[in-house]
């Protein structure tokens, strides 16, 4: 799996190559828009990390040129100009994600993972949070290494939470998931299933916690981290 880094700042390129290497990705780099388009025309990459401030052209023109010749390779735009206006035009131009400099390395890796998953290049074996692991393919849950059986609705809620662990999943989103399964639910259905799921997790000795963000939703956090 190769990643193309389009960036003119030599040191940043070095650091990015090293970061990607430790994460298990091979990478090539181009320092100008022209080089990037040339390289992209004969090599397929899993992801392109594209700096928008290139010396010869606006990075967005690279995205546009790629999309024009029907190259759907996912692009993460890196930019020093994180103004509101830039962000909007960046996404409009066809970039798949947008990351402002400076960024936390784990954030970049997470975004790459997300893009690879979205474009079907990698299929998750399991998603982990603390000692809880969820396999999206088989829909099996293991807590502390022990397979645990959950009801369909509990599983749906846990899947949503674990996919976005440490981030808030809105109550409206969970409601939608539950109503997709059945429409004979009471108005406090979300609370009910969250409550059940909490009890299950506690009983099974999970080291994760479902935190309520009142008025907004819920978030699964790893107590150990």
């Amino acid at each position, binding site marked *: 799996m190769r990643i193309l880094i389009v960036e003119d700042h030599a040191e940043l390129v070095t650091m990015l190559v090293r970061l990607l290497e430790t994460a298990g990705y091979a990478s090539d780099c181009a320092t100008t828009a022209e080089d990037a388009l040339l390289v992209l025309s004969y090599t397929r990459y899993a992801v392109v990390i594209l700096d928008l401030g290139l010396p010869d052209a606006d990075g967005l023109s690279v995205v546009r040129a790629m999309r024009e010749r029907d190259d759907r390779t996912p692009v993460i735009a890196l930019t020093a100009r994180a*103004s509101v*206006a830039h962000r909007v035009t960046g996404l409009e131009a066809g970039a798949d994600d947008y990351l402002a400099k*400076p960024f936390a390395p784990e954030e970049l890796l997470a975004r790459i993972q997300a893009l690879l998953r979205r474009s079907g290049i990698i299929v998750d074996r399991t998603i982990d949070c603390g000692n809880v692991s969820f396999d999206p393919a088989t829909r099996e849950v293991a807590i502390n290494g022990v397979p645990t059986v959950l009801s369909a609705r509990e599983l749906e809620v846990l899947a949503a939470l674990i996919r976005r662990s440490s*981030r808030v999943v809105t109550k409206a989103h969970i409601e939608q998931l539950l109503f997709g399964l059945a429409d004979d639910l009471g108005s406090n259905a979300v609370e009910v299933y969250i409550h059940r799921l909490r009890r299950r997790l506690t009983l099974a000795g999970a080291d994760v916690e479902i935190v309520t963000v009142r*008025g907004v939703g819920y978030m699964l956090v790893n107590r150990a981290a």
Partner: protein
Amino acid sequence: MTRQPRSLMTQILRWHAIAVLITAIAVAGSVYLFLDTTAALIQQQTLHVHAEALRQALSHDGTGRLRLTQDNTSAAVFASGAGFSFRIVDRRGTLLFQSQSKMVLPTANIPLEDEESFFRRQSRRTFYAGTSSPARIGNERVWIAVLQNLTHPDYILDDLLAQFLLYGMAIVAPLLLLLLAIDALIIRRAVLPVRRASASLETAEGVPLDLRLHDERLPAEVRPLALAVNAILERLASSYRMQRDFTADAAHELRTPIAVARLRVEGVDDPGLRGQLRSDLDMLGRIVEQLLEIAELETVGLDTAASVDLVRIATDGVASIAPLAFCAGKSIAFSSEADKVVIAGHAVWIAKALGCLIENAVTHSGEGRQIEVTVSADGTLAVCDDGSGVPEQDQAAIFRRFWKRDRSAGRSSGLGLAIVAQVAEAHQTTVSLTSRPGRTRFAIVFRLGPVTQ
């Protein structure tokens, strides 16, 4: 005392009208003076001719007495009821002859001088012009006085004069008015490019920086001014562009090295040091980001006219910052009076302001545990915490850039609340702060949008 500035046209026309008026008076006056002098001269000549005729008619008879032999013409002039009368007197004023039409003037009022003299007299509302000329007949010296009744119907010179002036003015006055009107048109035409240039500046709201005065027909007197204004606008625009470009350049120049350093830190072996450097660099990155946000707020005019749902902005804002609050050991909650509160504003910047307020509550609420974000139906967005509060004396200062209660406290850029204040200002509103230990509330009241449900 302030004087209302008068228009160029009014000023020119006003002075011009005064000049025309003075000219009219001067012309009328000098014409009158000239005509009057001429009339007086003609009158004197007439009197002189009649006096001369009388002198010719005087002679001695054989006995040494004076005799007056008037011819028909002369007799007709002095006939009874005519405008002329005469009196011939000797040195002592003794009346020798007089005309049929009686002279009303007493003899004592007639000057007897060595030279011919003309005079004017008034007697019982009647005006007279007269001459008294000495004549020597043989040894005798007599004075021939001829008098003309100026009010007599036969005397038409004054009437002529009056009529002439009246008709003259009747013709001249409209001509002068016409001249004024034509001048007004000419001035108007000349001033038009200037007015147009002024109007182009006036109608533009707040004078956009790309505006230039470039009317080719601007008069030479005004053109340097217009060129100077253009030069100033050009310079303003270029410094504005420079500042904006500087912001973008500074962003690039600062952010990339920080990004490099942030990646390099991952190679540090000592986990303690690595963690510290990470958080330092994250802080540095945050300061740069907020500095640029401040700069962007200042240079780019926000369009705050869009209808946005405050509930949605607040929900997203709380959701995105909840993990940070959780890590800091705080709980965060959101509540709204309505499902939807539509306000007029800029969604992204309101979200940023809310982010700053929540971050401020997370960082500065000390022992406080609970952060609450609320949206009211009247368009109020509020962030409350149960921390130790902001001391009264600091409440105004906290909105200043880089202000920190404790200078050594490193976990804050000191820019967040300045951004909040600036976003509020861009929305023509302010941030209100009420604080006491245990309850601190920051609130911004936004204008409700066109559609409220």
